[in-house]
């Protein structure tokens, strides 16, 4: 786990608690998705990092650079826990993803493609963010999900994701997990970014979470 400058507000203990909270939350999210598609979602150990918001896109580029292009589903959330979630799949995985939902070999129209990606995003982001918030004693509201079906990694610009993620001098907590579908050659990335406005609450909530045991 990396805790990096610019301003180290989180202790390593707090980051470790957040990593475990994220682990529990993504377990819940993957179970929700697996119930729908009847395929096991294989999880990796989540990663938590404190990062300057202006370096966020560069970080996401680095994480996903093995792919030429991504389909990105973005959803903002707000409560005491406020930020954005980005669910990213390689653009080449779109057909495979649709096949997980479509038993009848329906022709893949742009509309079906869009609706499938938004549904996967809705399930994974909603369940994961909702569980993080629940574990930390909060409840969040969500914006409608936004799909950018084809983002070329080398051109991943600030416009590809919500503008409020950027912000010179601000700090964000980046939570990342990589997952894939068992027996399918499909991987995805989930990035949760809690913005600086959540930081103070998040520190208290993480300590309260541990105090519950």
């Amino acid at each position, binding site marked *: 786990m990396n805790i990096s400058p610019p301003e180290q507000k989180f202790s390593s203990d707090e980051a*470790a608690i957040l990593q475990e909270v994220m682990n529990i939350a993504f377990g819940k999210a993957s*179970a929700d998705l*697996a*119930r729908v598609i009847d395929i096991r979602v294989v999880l990796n*150990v989540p990663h938590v990092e404190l990062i300057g918001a202006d370096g966020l896109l560069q970080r996401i580029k680095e994480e996903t650079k093995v792919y030429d292009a991504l389909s990105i589903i973005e959803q903002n959330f707000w409560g005491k826990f406020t930020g954005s979630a980005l669910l990213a799949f390689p653009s080449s995985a779109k057909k495979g993803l649709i096949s997980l939902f479509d038993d009848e070999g329906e022709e893949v129209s742009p509309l079906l493609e869009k609706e499938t990606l938004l549904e996967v995003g809705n399930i994974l982001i909603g369940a994961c963010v909702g569980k993080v918030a629940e*574990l930390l004693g909060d409840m969040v509201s969500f914006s409608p999900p936004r799909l950018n079906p084809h983002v070329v990694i080398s051109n991943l610009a600030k416009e590809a994701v919500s503008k409020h993620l950027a912000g010179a001098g601000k700090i964000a907590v980046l939570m990342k997990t990589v997952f894939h579908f068992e027996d399918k050659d499909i991987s995805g990335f989930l990035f949760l970014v809690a913005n600086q406005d959540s930081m103070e609450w998040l520190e208290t909530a993480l300590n309260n979470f541990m105090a519950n*045991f």
Partner: protein
Amino acid sequence: MIKKILIVDDSQVARAIVKKCLPKDRDFELTEASNGQEGLQKFKEVRPDLTFLDLTMPVMDGFDALKAIKEEDNLAVVMVLSSDIQKKTVEKVVTLGADMVIPKPPSAESIQEALTKAAKLLV
């Protein structure tokens, strides 16, 4: 009576939560490991009465660790403690020999239930 407990989880926080959920009025000999490979090694050294085993871990995951522990001792009592609560995951670990699957985060009640079940299995 359960005396020796092995907790295998890459998260120090998760291990701390398990320890906090153990009954305070009992004296356990606790051993910890931070991945499946280390867990297997500690299992061989300590021969615990009960192992709490996470699934999603680096180096060696909990599935391989469970398989290896059961190959080492088919009667080993292993409770999987995981955030991965998918039906197919549960089926897989039960097939591999897990005695119980406890969703994360555990509670004092779920840990007590595991201790009670482990004690019965050891009789």
